[in-house]
């Protein structure tokens, strides 16, 4: 399930890009989930663990992936238990956050109101301990917390 805390979290990784650069593992990049997320969000193809083909930037390393994709990969594979700043992701990452949270308990911090669409989904708002299942109830909670 996806657990969201709106606002600053003690120990939160506010800058996931920096954390990613220093902590990512080659296997994370070549995992099918990462390949799909990189193709969808960054419109780039993973050639190998250390080479990604970007239509704009040319051959890049995982360090040059977008901040959003780096954060998604951390959410999917990092096992440190850290809470990542979900607001490093744009709305085009929202569906992937929901997908990652289908297979694990994922806790993120948000500093804006990410657009998760109309639903249905299962989001646990930690500030109020409410589980919301559609866009209206999610936004109704979020506007009072951001």
């Amino acid at each position, binding site marked *: 399930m996806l657990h969201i805390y709106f606002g600053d979290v003690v120990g939160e990784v506010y*800058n996931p890009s920096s954390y990613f650069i220093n902590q990512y593992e080659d296997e994370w990049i070549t995992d099918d989930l990462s390949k799909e997320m990189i193709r969808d969000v960054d419109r780039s193809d993973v050639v190998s663990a250390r080479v990604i083909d970007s239509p704009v*930037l040319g051959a890049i390393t995982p360090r040059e992936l977008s901040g959003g994709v780096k954060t998604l990969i951390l959410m999917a594979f990092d096992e440190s238990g850290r809470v990542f700043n979900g607001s490093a992701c744009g709305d085009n990452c929202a569906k992937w956050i929901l997908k990652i949270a289908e297979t694990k308990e994922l806790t993120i911090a948000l500093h804006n109101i990410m657009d998760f669409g109309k639903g249905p989904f299962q989001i646990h708002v930690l500030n109020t301990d409410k589980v919301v299942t559609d866009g209206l109830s999610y936004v109704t909670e979020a506007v009072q917390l951001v």
Partner: protein
Amino acid sequence: MKGAHQVVIENKRLRYDFTIHRNITVIRGNSATGKTTLIGMLSLYQQDGEASGVRLSCDKACVVINSVRWQENLAVIRDSIVFIDEDDHFVKSQEFAEAIQASDNYYVIITRDRLPSLPYSVTEIYGIRVSGKYAGLKQVYNEFYRIYGNTADAEKADICVTEDSNSGYQFLKYALAEHSSEMTCVSASGKSNIPAKILALKDRHPLVFADGAAFGPEMERVDRLREQGFHLLLFLPESFEWLILKSALINEGEVSRILEQPEDFIESREYFSWERFFTDLLRRKTNRTYLHYDKAEINPAYLQDSVSSQIVAEFPEKVKKLLGIYEKK
């Protein structure tokens, strides 16, 4: 700093071309649109100039700062456009708001955070989009686009919500009564309370009057409510004072010139937001006249038919219609 400043920055693969109009610009939007790449190119140029392979064209210095010693760095940066990437938490601090309030720089801040301490305009929130290849070369051309466009899309309104109970609210309340409108007017007691007010009016159709010049921090929350089916209309002129100035009550060439191109007259060091400038301008222009302006309490002269109708004339037709206010001939 005053004025609008075009920034063109490019390398062999990418070109960004945009114009900064006022002291605070916020860039947000989807991931992978090139926000951090823009900061990266500016950083390289800052470090090595043209030898970096990046070309920059702007009539002002473009500077990137990050969280390392940001206060010390800001203290020595003058008359520049300062860029800040989204990874830098300090932009949320009160210290940052205070530091930039007293500086003569413009700031371009990449963030999805709300930044309630900064009075940025709804019109200065941008995303970045690709607008095609530049000049037929293999260079991707990126431009800024306004995230919040037309806000007048509701077909019905049955209650007015203003951000506070100052002159604008008092004027509106009077105008509604004067025109026998059935609409009531309530204050949200602060612009940050407007989303909560909209929630509380769930089954109503509120028309929100607020100062667009400083409404940026509230815009995402209001927009999300609208996306989820809340029926609301936003009327976001720069400010109530701007409406009065625009109404030609103060028939001066200088005022017309200012309103035509405000950025050429508003010094960022003196005015944190344009709303404050327009309030000050109106006060100065009406000082010692029967129209002397007091923001806290409306001068009864503004409620006279001949005066109020000139202000109402500046409301968009759609807003007047929804309010049930018609210009008196």
